[in-house]
């Protein structure tokens, strides 16, 4: 199951080819996933166009991360920036490459972008400093 989420994500990314949120930029990122038996995903972005392989090749950024964290990230449950600040992700090399990559990650499940309007009467009833 776990294998599926990660493979599915990178599979979808590769199928997409041109990823608009990469804004035509270029970078290479390798993900080293897991503790003991390390799984590699190598992502090449050329002018926004993505190719993915399983090779252990050099990259602008090498990202070390555990499996549950990747699963959380590719499903929007873990934000890349907070993971980095928390030490759940270690990035060697170009942090800019990782920052570019995170732009293809989904938002948190349940975020709708919508919120119910609030009336003037309600605002007036709030206790204020």
């Amino acid at each position, binding site marked *: 199951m776990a294998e599926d989420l990660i493979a599915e994500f990178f599979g979808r990314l590769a199928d997409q080819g041109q990823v608009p949120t990469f804004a035509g930029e270029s970078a290479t990122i390798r993900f080293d996933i897991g503790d003991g038996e390390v799984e590699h995903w190598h992502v090449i972005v050329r002018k926004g166009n993505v190719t993915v392989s399983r090779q252990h090749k050099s990259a602008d950024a090498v990202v070390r991360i555990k499996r549950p964290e990747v699963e959380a990230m590719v499903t929007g449950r873990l934000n890349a920036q*907070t993971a980095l600040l928390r030490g759940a992700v270690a990035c060697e090399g170009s942090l800019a490459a990782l920052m570019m990559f995170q732009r293809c990650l989904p938002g948190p499940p349940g975020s709708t972008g919508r919120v119910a309007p609030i009336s003037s009467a309600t605002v007036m009833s709030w206790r204020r400093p």
Partner: protein
Amino acid sequence: MSASTELVQILEGNTFVVSDSGGDIEASPTDPTGLFSFDTRFLSHWVLTVDGQRLSPLSTDDLHYYQARFFLVPGSGTVYVDSQLSVIRLREVANGFHEELRVLNHQNEAVRLEIRIEAASDFADLFEVKDALAKKGEYQSEPSPGSLVLRYRRETYMRETAISSTAPAVFDESGLTFQVTVPPHGEWKTELHVVTVVGIVDGSQRGAARSRGQRRVRRDMARGLEKWLQRAPRLECDWEPLAAIYHRCLTDLAALRFSTLTMPNRALPAAGLPWFMTIFGRDSILTSLQALPFNSELAATTLLALAERQGTRTDDFREEDPGRILHELRYGELTAFEERPHSPYYGSADATPLWVILLDEYERWTGDVRLVRHLEHAACAALDWIDKYADLQGNGYIAYQRRNPETGLENQCWKDSWDSISYRNGDLPGFPRATCELQGYAYDAKVRGARLAREVWRDMALADRLEKEAAELKRRFNRDFWIDDGEYFAVALDTDGRRVDSLTSNIGHLLWSGIVDKAKARAVARHLLGPRMFSGWGVRTMAEGDARYNPIGYHVGTVWPFDNSFIAWGLRRYGFKEEAACIAAGILQAADIFAGRLPEAFGGYPRSATRYPVQYPTACSPQAWSTGAPLLLLRVILGLEPHHEHLIVDPAMPKWIGHLALLDMPGRWRRMDAYGRGRVDTDRATQR
């Protein structure tokens, strides 16, 4: 304030030290002293004693923004006795801080002394220092023969402070001790290194080359400041204070330079010292705009850094949308654990159109079409955000309402306090709110986006569409926001499309954006310079006479220098040169009284009532956009405007300024000089 309670602050980038005037740090959980880096306090206790005795300061020198020197003598300092010892601490910020400690013996005999430094850290998040929150992780203190490492750990989150010394010391869990003999009329010296370890950027902050590295950083800082000042245009003026104001602004702007982790060799303006040493979309953009005629690198970095973190998805906690430009980015523990949304937080309704405005203005000054081409995708995403994600009222206007009710911002415009947007009678409108200046920014972003589409991206269809939308927006805006009986624009439209009818300084930003119909501009200008709004020093955020008006209310009556600089720019844009000169006169005279460093805001009392501007008490000084205000005002009174490959100069300056010259103005014309002579009589307006 007595000398011993005055705080001393030095900084570099997002690292800063706040200590007492003797150099000691004794922070309580809510006290703003300490060594801070990446929004975390790395030292909360740093106290020097000699033979168990505290020291008292004789004097303190702020040598540079990154360096301070403390002259101390043993004892409490209540009764001054000729001391046989003096102690000098020279402290510099760089990847933590570096402190040279010298003990001078003034006697004819050698003395044996025990010198001790107590050190500890609470690793508080900046937000915790403000709100006094409890910590959730564990502390460790690890002394070794050569160093003391203080550590904080919460799950995988780890921050460290490593303390070492060049002279031999005994390290224990709570500090370090030196047993020294100082020869007669001689001195003893050590260099202390306090290094902060964040662990995001690996390797670079550790290692044996630490002290050599710090010395290099220090030399670079001194050289960097010199170069920064030399590169700026030279100013000559008959009114002497202006040269000092100009120099203060450039130096403060240098201190406010901030580098992101992904662009360590570039600088953008952080919002303010010391608590807002980070990227703020709005503040970084507006300061870059103010400084653009003098330095274009800040603008370029701001554009790139904000594009890098431009929103790409829907996230209600961070209030992120595709294309939205961020509001604030933080690196502390509360952000790391999502107890605060600043990773980054996107709750700003103006940063996105303002980013497009800066992109265009940057190109007009620099001719750097490469950067504009590089940022085409980001610009289109920003323009799309305005129409697709910001129209919360469904009426074609930008509006805001927070989606993060716990830690999001209620007012997502520059007047972000809870009571800033109100009806004339003091009632508060509901949400979403469409404040007027947002519509002006949207209009300007479309007009400028159209120019870039036509001239740089060669996308004629986009240019045509944006121009059509802009014209349509202007037409509707002048109908929907205009208050006929008062002859001004409402501060906002509420959820029912009703005009929120207080009279505010926001109408000045409308002139700046160009959204105001020519026929309505004179009435707007009359209000801005009229007795309800103009205090003699500047334009009040809210007009006297409205229910919530308070001359010392944060956004409801105080005068903000930054606000005034954009209002003056707006007046110029509509041809009100003399009115713009009057505002420049008041603000520059205030700047002179504040020794060149304008506060964030000052009281809205009539000038005749207080004689001196009454400073609004705020934690941050210098504030970036207050620092930028005199720079923008210089542009405004000289009438500097890029036009193709030329710089137009069309001065309208206060008479008492006399002759003014800005030499070697950088731009697409390489270097040009601008001259003016003061001819506008501003005294009547400013003597209010």
